[in-house]
């Protein structure tokens, strides 16, 4: 520490002329030609004092010309600034000096800092991306910085936090581990993406209480508390949190599989609902593959009503039925939701009805995904009716919904009218040959649709091909429009005759 104290002052040679020693040494290093006969003698005593045991080399270093060494020249003597920087790097953990340095020196220091420094030192001090990039690449072999807004620092903290959350075991791990990190990362973390929550370790100890009922279990009352980590404290501390992507489950369980590992308890659900409600900056909320049933979905969605910022809600791969769908429909009219994903749930015709009703008056929703549900023709027709009045939706996914010809008829009418839809997915339905023909008719009047997925839906190949051609023409027109919005009409007419010929 004494050494750091002594080197602290010479680290800023330009700003302060500290002692005769530094001044003469810098002069000696920078000006090789200007000899100062009177100076060298008073230099030596303080030098010997400061360097202590290694004074021999120090003396050698301090001498400006060493006659006995033929290869010696001033060029190989490291600059004092260089030495200081090395020293700062070496002692950075104990005495972080960065902001006081000149920009070029800061860069050097950052380039030489070890990525293993404790976060408490570096988190709020270093903003340099290259340093955090080194940290990330050292820790994780694959880094997609684009997923984290292009910021390495943000990526580091998000992944670090995710790692901690993934391996957090309730009642065993100390919660302070995460909460201690909070003040360091609160300004940088914008998204939490966790795809596993470990349950508490099964101990013979008695369960904490019977106040929470675990519906996900097989109904055994003596089931031990299977609650996962409660996010409320963490989320409340993160002031910039925008994305929350959670999966309540365990990965790589192998032969140790138990249903208990995949439990999303009511207590978890309530706490998550409160957390999400309290987080006013949240824009994206995803809760997938977590066995969320109607009741839990209702609890969550109720807490999301009138949320000020929420834009995307993803509840795919759950067990949501018609009641949950009705709740989602209510949410559509009570929020500014732009993306709603209910893929792979158990929504049937009544749920689709309520969703369609909400969609008819909605002006925010852009994307709706109902893949792998079972809304059938009844629900499909309702949705198609809703699309007559809706002027906002651009993407609609109805793949694998047991739809057939009546829905296709209505959808073809929608296609002639609607000018906002750009992508429709009707794959894995039983549209049939006639339905395909009707859709082709509808497509012939549409100029905006860019994607229309009709794979494996029992359509004649001819109509599928023609629809594909129409989509191609639309895409070309859209491209022309994007390129030169003022006169896009002429290319369209030029390209027009090509389509039927091809």
């Amino acid at each position, binding site marked *: 520490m004494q050494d750091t104290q002594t080197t602290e002052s010479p680290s800023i040679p330009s700003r302060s002329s500290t002692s005769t020693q530094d001044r003469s040494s810098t002069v000696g290093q920078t000006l090789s030609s200007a000899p100062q006969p009177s100076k060298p003698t008073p230099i030596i005593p303080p030098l010997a004092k400061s360097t202590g045991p290694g004074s021999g080399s120090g003396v050698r270093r301090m001498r400006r010309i060493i006659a006995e060494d033929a290869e010696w020249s001033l060029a190989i003597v490291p600059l004092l600034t260089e030495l200081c920087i090395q020293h700062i790097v070496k002692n950075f953990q104990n005495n972080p000096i960065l902001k006081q340095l000149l920009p070029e020196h800061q860069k050097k220091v950052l380039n030489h800092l070890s990525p293993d420094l404790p976060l408490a030192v570096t988190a709020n001090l270093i903003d340099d991306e290259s340093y955090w990039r080194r940290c990330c690449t050292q820790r994780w072999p694959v880094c997609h910085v684009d997923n984290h807004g292009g910021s390495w620092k943000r990526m580091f903290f998000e992944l670090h936090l995710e790692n901690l959350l993934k391996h957090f075991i309730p009642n065993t791990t100390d919660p302070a581990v995460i909460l201690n990190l909070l003040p360091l990362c609160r300004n940088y973390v914008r998204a939490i993406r966790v795809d596993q929550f470990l349950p508490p370790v099964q101990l013979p100890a008695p369960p904490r209480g019977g106040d929470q009922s675990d519906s996900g279990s097989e109904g055994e009352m003596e089931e031990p508390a299977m609650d996962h980590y409660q996010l409320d404290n963490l989320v409340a501390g993160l002031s910039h949190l925008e994305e929350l992507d959670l999966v309540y489950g365990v990965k790589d369980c192998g032969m140790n599989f138990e249903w208990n590992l995949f439990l999303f308890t009511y207590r978890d659900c309530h706490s998550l609902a409160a957390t999400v409600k309290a987080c006013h900056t949240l824009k994206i909320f995803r809760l997938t593959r977590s066995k969320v049933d109607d009741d839990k979905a209702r609890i969550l969605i109720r807490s999301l009503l009138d949320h000020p910022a929420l834009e995307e809600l993803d509840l795919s791969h759950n067990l949501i039925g018609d009641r949950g769908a009705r709740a989602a429909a209510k949410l559509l009219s009570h929020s500014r939701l732009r993306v709603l994903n209910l893929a792979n749930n158990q929504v049937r015709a009544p749920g689709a009805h309520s969703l369609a009703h909400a969609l008819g008056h909605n002006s925010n929703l852009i994307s709706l995904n109902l*893949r*792998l549900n079972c809304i059938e023709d009844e629900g499909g027709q309702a949705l198609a009716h809703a699309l007559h009045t809706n002027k906002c939706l651009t993407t609609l996914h109805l*793949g*694998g919904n*047991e739809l057939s010809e009546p829905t296709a008829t209505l959808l073809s009418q929608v296609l002639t009218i609607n000018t906002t839809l750009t992508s429709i997915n009707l*794959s*894995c339905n039983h549209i049939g040959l006639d339905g395909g023909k009707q859709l082709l008719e509808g497509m012939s009047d549409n100029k905006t649709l860019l994607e229309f*997925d009709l*794979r*494996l839906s029992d359509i004649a190949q001819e109509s599928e091909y023609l629809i594909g051609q129409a989509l191609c023409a639309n*895409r070309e027109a859209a491209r022309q429009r994007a390129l030169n919005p003022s006169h896009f009409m002429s290319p369209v007419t030029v390209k027009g005759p090509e389509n039927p010929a091809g």
Partner: protein
Amino acid sequence: MTCPPREALGEYLDGKKESEEDQSKSYKQKEESRLKLAKLLLCGTELVTNIQVAADIREIHRRVEEEEIKRQRLEKLENEVKTSQDKFDEITVKWEEGKQRRIPQELWEMLNAQQVHCAGLIEDKNKLISELQQELKMKDDQYVKDLKKQSDDICLLLERMEEQVKNVMKTFRQELQNIEKAFEVERQELLTSNKKKWERALQAHNAKELEYLMNRIKKVEDYEKQLNKQRIWDCEEYNTIKIKLEQDVQILEQQLQQMKATYQLNQEKLEYNFQVLKKRDEESTVIKSQQKRKINRLHDVLNNLRSKYNKQVKQFQEENQSLTSDYKRLVLQFKELQKAMRHFALIDDKRFREIWLMNEEEAKDLINRAFDVDRIISTHHLGLPWMAPDFWFLKNVGPISQQQQKSATQILEEVLMEAEKEGADEDSSESETYLDLPKQVSARTTRKILMLLCDESGFLIESKLLSLLLPLEKNECYLLRLDAVFSALGIENEDDLYKLVNFFLKYQTHHSPSSQEPLDLRAEKERSLVDGKSQEKEPPPSPKLIHPNDVLKILEAFVMSLRKPRDFWVPVKLLKAVRDDSKDSEYWEALTTVIPATTLNLWDALYTALEKYHLVLTQRAELLIENSSLERQNTELQQLLQQYLDTKINSELQVPPTQVFRVPTK
């Protein structure tokens, strides 16, 4: 020279067209590649997503089958339950039957049958269980198979994705190469065409150059020919001119000879003349020396005289100085004396006036008292109406004075001073100042006329005086200048001055009567308020209207008119200071005889009558006093009587005296 740019322009245009074609070629290539790539991407993603779609549909089929199987299983179970229930019922019924059996053999048989039935039931159940277990096993197998299938799917997906990526990269690279090649070809074409163009242009340029060169050579030859021609012509001309000039030279030489001869002749003549002149010059030098000597002598005399003159000048200057100092002293003394005299005169005047006033006041007091007495007597005692006598001297206050003649300069001074004062305190003191001016002309107009006069008649003043006046102050300067002017004009006293002023005004009215009417009316009104004695109806116009150019004419006219009556005014000047006291005695006499002798006689008679009346009155007064004393005595007696009557003795008496006689109440 105008041709090449136009050509270049044309070429440039051609090049542009060509490049456009080229552009379209590369554009076509780009468009082709783009379409190809888009198709590739679309197909690739479709290929990749096909797996997902297939999985989806498989899942849907599985779900449907699952549902079907579930339904069948439920049905089966229900049937089973029904049949087993029937069997069970049968068995339980048979138990009842068995109880009624008495024969052991029958019972055994029945029990055996029962056992067989139960075993059958259990076997059925076991069969069902094993069936279900079989199904479960199959499901497990199915699950494992599904898992395998899914992993295969994922592998396939990965493979396809990888393939897709590879394909896309390959095709992208290929298309890039294609596009690059297209561009390269285009560039080559462009280069060759441009090179061709360039060569063509160069050739054209070379041809032009050659043409120019030929032209130049031709021109050079032409010029050379012309030069030669010119040279020959010049030579000929030169020769002719030379001959001519030589002839001229000969003629001139002849003339020169002639001139030389005349020159010789003239030289001789001039030499003779020169000799004559020399002689004359010698004579003149002699005369000159004589004259010089004479001049020297005269110079000496002049110097003597000059020194003498200087001496004299000095002497006179000294004398002059002493005399001027004497003069100054005398002037000062005189001025002081004058001041004292003026002072004394003023004091005397004042004192005289005070004494006069005092006496007059005393006399008037007396007169007033006499008048009062007279009034009282006549009104109160005689009952006659009394009239206050009206005499001129009663209204007189102060000494009787006559306006004295003043000299023109004094007037001037006064006028100027007054005008100045007026300027200082506006018109408030106007009425006072007018009293000093007997004539109708206001001080201001007078002043203005005088100023005009002063400014215009500067020629009347001596130039020396003017130079002396320069340092003096303005007012004094005016005074002195006017003094000089008046002395030149012959104006000596006040009347002359006023005459002059009036003359001016009259002159003005004669010449421009119409223009000054409105001004006149106001001025006249003012004047009539101040002094009622104005005899002349002549309205004095504003001096502003007198044009400076007219001043000289007026002056001339005035001098002509003044010349005649001038002599009469000379003696008047001496009398001006003597006060006229002839009227004083008359005044005082008149004051004494204010009360006429008739009234005095009346007063005497009245006095005697009044004395008699006074006597009678005194006697009456004495009688009145006596009467009053008697009355007092009477009242005292009455009081005494009353006192007696009121005493208590009256009540004690049998016959009170009050009842006897009536008390006199009063």
